[in-house]
């Protein structure tokens, strides 16, 4: 099950966050900071799955943007990895030049609200 979905930039600023379980708001910032620190410290040829507390992080880097998904152990890590890529491709097709056009991304936040942990995004 997906616990949360984050898009964070290299400086640690959150661009998008979606939590599927209740997390206190101050804990969220702490979580995001820790998560981005872990992801930044990895080199290019290390694997994309990190074990963090009691769940796993699956992350993927696109230029200056990190997409990080927190999952628990019932989830197939590689399928989630593929899901991240699928998501970014959709955004790319829909908004063109995803990475720099964060504005349009945020503006259409209502579309991303429909991110259930499994949804056919192309519908």
């Amino acid at each position, binding site marked *: 099950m997906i616990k949360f979905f984050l898009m964070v930039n290299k400086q640690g*600023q959150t661009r998008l966050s979606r939590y599927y379980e209740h997390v206190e*708001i101050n804990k969220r*910032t702490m979580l995001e900071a820790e998560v981005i620190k872990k992801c930044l410290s990895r080199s290019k040829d290390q*694997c994309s799955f990190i074990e963090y507390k009691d769940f796993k992080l699956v992350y993927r880097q696109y230029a200056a943007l990190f997409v990080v998904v927190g999952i628990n152990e019932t989830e197939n890590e590689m399928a989630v990895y593929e899901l991240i890529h*699928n998501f970014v491709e959709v955004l790319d097709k829909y908004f063109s030049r995803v990475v720099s056009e964060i504005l349009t991304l945020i503006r259409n936040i209502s579309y991303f*609200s429909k991110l*259930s942990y499994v*949804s056919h995004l*192309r519908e």
Partner: protein
Amino acid sequence: MPAPIRLRELIRTIRTARTQAEEREMIQKECAAIRSSFREEDNTYRCRNVAKLLYMHMLGYPAHFGQLECLKLIASQKFTDKRIGYLGAMLLLDERQDVHLLMTNCIKNDLNHSTQYVQGLALCTLGCMGSSEMCRDLAGEVEKLLKTSNSYLRKKAALCAVHVIRKVPELMEMFLPATKNLLNEKNHGVLHTSVVLLTEMCERSPDMLAHFRKLVPQLVRILKNLIMSGYSPEHDVSGISDPFLQVRILRLLRILGRNDDDSSEAMNDILAQVATNTETSKNVGNAILYETVLTIMDIKSESGLRVLAINILGRFLLNNDKNIRYVALTSLLKTVQTDHNAVQRHRSTIVDCLKDLDVSIKRRAMELSFALVNGNNVRGMMKELLYFLDSCEPEFKADCASGIFLAAEKYAPSKRWHIDTIMRVLTTAGSYVRDDAVPNLIQLITNSVEMHAYTVQRLYKAILGDYSQQPLVQVASWCIGEYGDLLVSGQCEEEEPIQATEDEVLDILESVLISNMSASVTRGYALTAIMKLSTRFTCTVNRIKKVVSIYGSSIDVELQQRAVEYNALFKKYDHMRPALLERMPVMEKVTTNGPTEIVQTNGETEPAVLETKPPPSGLQPASQANDLLDLLGGSDITPVIPTAPTSKPASAGGELLDLLGDLNLTGSPVSAPVPQIAQPPFLLDGLSSQPLFNDIAAGIPSITAYNKNGLKIDFTFERSNTNPSVTVITIQASNSTELDMTDFVFQAAVPKTFQLQLLSPSSSVIPAFNSGTITQVIKVLNPQKPSEAGLKTVIQQT
């Protein structure tokens, strides 16, 4: 009041902030503007304001004052308002807030709205944050929408149903009829969400699971179509048709096929097909293969299929992609229990992964390596693991050390190898070793009697250089205290004996005591070791006395107590000192894992405890022999009674007393009371924090119960102070004939009101010529106040 700025502008402004403080300032200003706008009840811009509020909430700033505004937006008729309102509700509201119930009516109306998009919004929100009350109220609507023909709504309704079931499991049956047709859909969105719904239902209820087993053929057909169908642009991801759906179906098949032969059989073909036909060049294909392997492992598949799965994992291990290797290691860990031999084939690759740079892979490889160690490969594996311990990150060292200890204990080919391995671990990862390893190690060392000299020599050399690693220093001080005489006498067969004088040994122990790096526990070990050396060393007793008396005024209470008691030992009880500080006997290990087993000691001797105890037993005349016999008598009782919590008190107590029995065999009780008495207190020290000797009571003189035909049986009686109705009788049987008596069995019977507990005897053979005795303990519980108890004994001998 000027129109509030748009979200876009806000984002642009915030991005220009260069520091966190600037950003916070901007946000606070904007929040104030939004709050005043809300107070004015401005309908036109409410939507915009809430959108900005949501953005700020996402950045981590509090936004709870927007909750009611979201509700107002939901109630509005405009779609754009509703959209933002529902979004806000999903992000800001949950069942913890009271206002969320106000939404129920709105959602109900919107679920029946004419526009499918509005219905969709309502379904999404309900499926995201609906509380159990809301779900109960609206489940009927959701169920209705689940049967609709509109695929856009159907898929959202399915996901909403998943949430409802999670919150209110009793409503599961309500959705059962609607699931009948779900899998007949062509639309992948609906198929996908239906499979999710079915998965959720099967996981929650075994009845549902049994019910849905009949769907296996249909699922197999769908999966087949997915694989066989040609290119479909709508569902294509890197050349594979809808991999997400494939993975979901495989997972559902796994749940359905678990523990069920028929379903597993129906799946065998399709699993083999998926495993062989999937493209492995891209990540997508590997994701599907991974899920397939997990499914094959979990269901009752035939052996050919299992072999196929393990081979796939083996191929993954050799892949260059780190993700794939990680995933392979994880799955192998799951399967190593069941398919041990198959996994062994890949052992060398797994061991290579230990050297990988990636932290996640290293951790998995380490766990898997420990699972693969067996009697044949233990030497090679240990070498690799020790090398890994040297070079790994600190977070691994504790786990690795514990793992190595466990594996070494189970599979050690020789005692010397075992001790060498332990030494290596202590010297490389000394400070990361867990605390409970120290008593285990000490027990291991005492058990390997012939290696004492070698062990103490190596430990001494190890701490000569560096005494900062606490567990190492603790074990070393204990050993030096015990076997110091072997160290100075220089007798060591295994290695070059080193020249160590008594002064040098005392130097090192004193430096441990003084050092700032030593923990309080370590200092305790060192002080006791120095004390023990007073009996082993001959020329430095005065020095030891001086050291001990210095610490009598130490700030550390534990050290002070020990020092004071040792001082007393020197001054008042010097005659008992050699006896008390005798060498420890071989300890029996009762279980390998029990942390509170009786026989495990922390290696500490507490002769000091004895010091304070002789006064209570002053019932006996003050002769030395009797004092010591009392202590022996006392020590008989106490381990048996207070250690009831362990699951097998009888056997443990019996074994302890076996040891006492063994001691008796070394010489008849009367002639050499001194060495015998010394040993039991040491054993009993390990009884964690029990006030051991408080219960000494004597008062019933011992009797000779039977003396005929060369067989003499003595009874000694003790009564426990903690439980006055329990009498403990110790039987000692000796044999003065020329032949050994074998198969000696002692039975006893008591009247009905009494309870009798017969513990196991020390042995069943009484050696001839009074050269040894058998000891057995009987406990008699007399629930009524004092009365006569007759004890009928039956002796069988052959």
